[in-house]
């Protein structure tokens, strides 16, 4: 076959890149997602377009469940709503057996609306409005208390409803990682937890039945979880002995890494990020060895990112190309940081819909916003991209669809590729009507 003509060019030779031969151009081509051609997706649903794979969502959930359950007999997965609370995504995880982890009245309402019974909701978060707190109590949700003021609120609710409320305590502690998140719950090392426990016992309206901690996000040290589990176990035993409570669950929160590449991580994710099996093993080992047989507490995991991130793709299109003053090539895409909030912290995998001729060269990918910060990727190695080329960015499943903004432009469609290959819209594109519906024009301005 005759090779297409390529313009000659001179590029600087780069050595020592930590990439093997396979990770060259070939890997940067993605013609389809779950068997559906990218071209067809764009033609039918437009660009930009978020695409989720049901198969990947379910496979990942089943993989993680198999992994954790084969290491530890009592595990509950609680789907972290803030990671992605699209109805379709939540429903898939609930179908697979996950409960709902919510942190606000909005998320609580959303879970209830999806038909999740109160007892299958874990209510975290630093601010739980009084109203929703009472509803959660009445519906039997598991509430993890964040502050003393919340305890006072709950005691009042207990008085009103005349029932003893079973709660969880949020704990922060030193597990040897940096930065230490100490804003959630009560500190362990300073003894705050015990004095709060004493106060709860004295009030005799509440009863502690669980412990919760959330150490941080994208934690790269499995040992940190083992240490957290150990410390919580010790604390649980102490609370049981001292106050006669029955600590039924230990909630280790989330923070498990996905295969995204955080900025500042030098190694590629396959090398730099420990596999999740290591996390499972360490956590299970410290729980199994630290408890009396048969008394193994329920282990709750609020895995978000690691479940959903890799099932999400964003298809975007090159709308124009220019040279910057320093000679770098720049492309303007139709998706920017308005849709990709995580672009501030993570590098995405950038794939092209088809093989393109031409040597790769460093270039910058800008979004469509009229803002200097709208940079999707500062330094991507891509061949010359003709106008209209579709790029596929991944993983983008986590946090983007909850933190995206209606800013300057509309938010696009989200589709789900079902297990049998059918494509379904799970969120329609925004219209002017959606945006202005809540606006009110005062009489004198009409």
């Amino acid at each position, binding site marked *: 076959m005759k090779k297409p003509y390529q313009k000659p060019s001179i590029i600087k030779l780069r050595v020592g890149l930590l990439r093997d031969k396979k990770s060259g151009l070939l890997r940067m081509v993605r013609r389809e997602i779950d068997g559906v051609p990218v071209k067809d997706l764009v033609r039918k649903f437009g660009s930009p377009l978020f695409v989720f794979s049901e198969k990947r969502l379910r*496979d990942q959930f*089943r*993989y993680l*469940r*198999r992994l*954790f*359950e*084969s*290491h*530890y*007999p*009592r595990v509950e997965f609680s789907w972290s709503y803030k990671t992605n609370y699209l109805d379709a995504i939540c429903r898939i995880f609930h179908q697979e057996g996950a409960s709902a982890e919510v942190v606000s009245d909005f998320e609580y309402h959303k879970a209830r609306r999806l038909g999740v*019974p109160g*007892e299958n909701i874990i209510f975290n978060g630093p601010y739980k409005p009084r109203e929703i707190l009472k509803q959660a109590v009445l519906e*039997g949700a598991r509430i993890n208390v964040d502050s003393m003021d919340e305890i006072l609120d709950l005691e009042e609710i207990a008085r009103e409803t005349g029932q003893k409320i079973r709660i969880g305590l949020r704990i922060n502690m030193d597990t040897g990682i940096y930065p230490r998140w100490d804003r959630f719950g009560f500190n362990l090392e300073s003894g705050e937890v015990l004095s709060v426990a004493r106060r709860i016992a004295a009030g005799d309206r509440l009863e502690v039945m669980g412990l919760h901690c959330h150490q941080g996000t994208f934690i790269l040290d499995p040992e940190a979880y083992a240490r957290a589990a150990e410390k919580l176990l010790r604390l649980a035993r102490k609370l049981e002995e001292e106050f006669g409570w*029955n600590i*039924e669950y230990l909630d280790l929160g989330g923070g498990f890494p996905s295969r995204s590449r955080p900025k500042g991580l030098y190694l590629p994710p396959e090398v730099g990020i420990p596999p999740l099996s290591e996390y499972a*093993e360490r956590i*299970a080992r410290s729980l*199994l*060895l630290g408890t*009396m*047989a*048969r008394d*193994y507490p*329920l282990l709750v995991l609020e895995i978000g990112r690691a479940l959903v991130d890799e099932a999400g793709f964003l298809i975007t299109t090159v709308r124009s190309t220019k040279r910057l003053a320093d000679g770098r090539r720049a492309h303007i895409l139709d998706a920017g940081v308005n849709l990709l909030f995580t672009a501030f912290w993570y590098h995405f995998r950038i794939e092209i819909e088809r093989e393109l001729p031409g040597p790769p060269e460093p270039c910058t990918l800008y979004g469509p916003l009229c803002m200097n910060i709208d940079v999707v990727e500062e330094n991507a190695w891509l061949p010359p991209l003709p106008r209209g080329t579709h790029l596929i960015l991944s993983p983008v499943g986590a946090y983007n669809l909850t933190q995206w903004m209606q800013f300057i432009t509309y938010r696009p469609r989200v589709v789900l590729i079902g297990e049998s290959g059918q494509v379904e819209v799970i969120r329609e594109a925004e219209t002017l009507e959606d945006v202005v519906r809540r606006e009110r024009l005062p009489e004198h301005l009409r």
Partner: protein
Amino acid sequence: MRGLKPVITSILNSYSGILFLPHPLAGLGILILLTLLSPNLGLSGLICVLSAYLAARFLGLREDFLRLDFYIYNPLLVGLSIGYFFRIGPLSLIFLALMGIFTFLLTYSLSSALSYYFRLPVLSLPFVMGSITAALASYRYSNLFVALHPPEFFWSPHLPLWLEGFLRSLGAIFFMPHPVPGLILFGILLVFSRILALLSLAGYLAGTLTSYLLTGSAHQAFSDPNHFNFVLIALATGGVFLIPSPESYLLALMASVVAVPLTEASGIFWEKFGLPAFALPFNLVTLLMLYSLGLSRYRKLTLYYRGTPERTLDYYLHRETRFPRDPDLEVPVSGKWTVWQGPNGRFTHKGAWRYALDLVITDEEGRTHTGEGLDLNDYYAYRKPIFSPVTGRVVELVDGLPDEPPGSANRDYPWGNHIIIYDPRGFYVVLAHISPGTFRVKKGDWIVKGTLLGLCGSSGYAPEPHLHIHIQSGPEIGTPTLPFVFSSYLKNGEFRDFSLPPEKETLEPAPPEKRLQHILNLLLGDRYIYEILDRKGSRQTFALRVEMAPDGTFYLTDGKARLYFAQRGSAFYFLGYDGSIRSPLRWFFLAAPKIPLALRPHLRWTDYLPLEVVLPPLKKELYLLLLSLYPSLLKPRGRYRALGKLDFEGEIFYGKQRFKVYTRLAPQKGFEEIKIQGSGVFLTIRRKEDERQG
């Protein structure tokens, strides 16, 4: 006087016990029949058994006397045999008393020896020995007055030869070889157990017809009173010591037929000494059958005879199908595993080692590893925790053998690193192919169920990492294996209990939740008030109490009916029901025969229901007879499905009946609400209040 009641019951039971019907009323009936038809016979028997009791009492064996249950019929039978030959007088009284004491001692010792060494019942062996002794001894006692006229009857019905022969034989069991007492005895059998009545006739005819075939003389065959042996053999084999079933019936007929030559032979043998043959053939044949069946681990031997074959069958149908006899273990792994090789497996589970399981982890595609499986770490099962399936003591632990790489196996040490745990229930559990250096327990440790033992590996004869588990009778590795079941597990979202998953099936442990364990831990002294509402809106209030039966089982009672319950493995069970079908307690059983202690939406399970909660008494008796012939005729089954963490619904069907049930547990303790719908029933049972007493 209260202490006398069990003794009287026991003595009465001994009368009917001869026909395997230990029931005081039946006993009283037979006692009256004997005494009325032949006072001499009746009194002799009574005197003999009373002297046995007094002797037992004198020796301090009162409790043992009672415990012998209906085998105390041995002194009675010896008394009858003496009364048959001799008139009652001062001398024969002494003779009776002596023989009564002698036979009691024989029964007491023999029953202990037989059950200890051979696991066999004593039957009427002591009677055979006692009566022969009495007959031989009486040669010298010329002062005894021979009963010149054996019991005579003023009326003799004209019956077909076979029927007369049958009734005569039935009467001969009580030394009254005459159709009239035979007919009355048959009536008693019929009232108390249709199965026994049927067996008595079938056994007699089978044996006697064979005898007719061999001797060629119908008259001889049908008039031989010794043919009562066939009746007893059929009763014992078909209905008492085996669970009544088509199989047991066939075995009973076979045993009766097999006994034909023996009956003939022993008759001729004892005739030489001028002695009656008595029940020796019955004893010999029945014991032989039982011993052989026991040796071959026949699965349907009666463990505990419940008074009638019907009751034994009923118990077997709902208890033993729900809780088999094999020891139950907990699932020794965490998460979802797959049975790679089951009992009598394709590869290595053969011969004496057939009752074993090999477990692996598989993914959605059924593979046991990722990638190409060239590395041990690719295997899902590799280095996954293994837990103790029992509570017991570690008696052996082998460590230090390396994990074999995939595809290879250690032939010299096939078990690899393994652990042997002694369970005080009387067996040893073996878990093998553990990864070296991962044991968390050591030899001599006492460990409880669920203790972390070590990690799964591929040491020994293990082409890929897997867990091997079996139980065996001795402490040495390689002792023959024994069958076992898992007390509970999940199979694709279905709760299973007291069974083993077949090959290729998955299983997952179903550990109980503390909260549900607590909610369903109904304690002595708890009192729950319920109201029951029917369709017409009428309300009725009733209270339930928790009480304990003498054998230690707990039950709920409304004052009359009793609903037995227990927590076993990972579920709460209603075990049995005693009482009227009109008691509201019955609905509790229907609504929740078994509650997994880890309810969650979509969890499914099934259960069998005992006949007494679905059928009125008479119908139930009829069905039991039919069920012994066609075991699959009626299996009242319920299918249940959890809706939330505290409630579930179910569907019950048997015959044309269908019920929909709904149960909700109280968040604190016990049952909150039960709804029943279907087959003309529409009611709700709702908790009103409850109180706890001291």
